[in-house]
């Protein structure tokens, strides 16, 4: 199982703060494609993705138990 955390407008848009994906291993790019499928999350191709609290690249691998987070453009400060 892979847990995907949602924040800010993504959380409101999907009306939940996390999604679980029933996979043991996938790349960040594959996750992106899965989330973007059928218009589920139109921003999937552009948001940054963090794996275990570090920004990840599309070729990075996500494994069972990892905590993934979708990071839309930030606006702190």
């Amino acid at each position, binding site marked *: 199982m892979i847990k995907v955390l949602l924040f800010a*407008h993504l959380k409101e848009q999907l009306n939940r703060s996390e999604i679980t994906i029933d996979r043991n291993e996938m790349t960040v790019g594959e996750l992106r494609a899965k989330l973007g499928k059928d218009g589920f999350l139109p921003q999937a191709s552009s948001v940054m993705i963090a794996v275990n609290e570090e920004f990840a690249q599309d070729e990075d691998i996500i494994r069972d138990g990892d905590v993934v987070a979708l990071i*839309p453009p930030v606006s702190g*400060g």
Partner: protein
Amino acid sequence: MFDIVKGPIDVSKVIDAVADRNTGAIVTFIGSVREMTKGKKTLYLEYEAYESMAKKKLEQIGSEIKTQFPDAKTAIVHRIGRLEITDIAVAIAVSAPHRDDAYRANRYAIERIKEMVPIWKKEHWENGEKWIGNQQETVSYEKTGVPKEFGL
């Protein structure tokens, strides 16, 4: 001191965290909630963070400053939750033996926060609300990247 807090920020504590005997300059940046933005009146702001990652990223900014300015000390506290007009959203203190490094490092810290620390702001107006994305269109989110203008 690198922290995300839910109540008012005690700026004097942020400053105290960087003061020491080798310090000749402390530069403090305070980001506060502005009422008018491009003619639009903000009623209040709501900040949300991916807290654990945001703390790590604030610490990372401290390390990046250390690499560029070895004698500088950094403390950053960002507040989340509902903030009213004039409330302090972020306080950054940087100390260094001399003022030039302290000014430059402090500027670096706030720019880096706006670039890659997972904190989001929602503006509430009289007639609506909106999560604010980053204002520049292109953002670099490299894992340990340092913006070019501050290149090592």
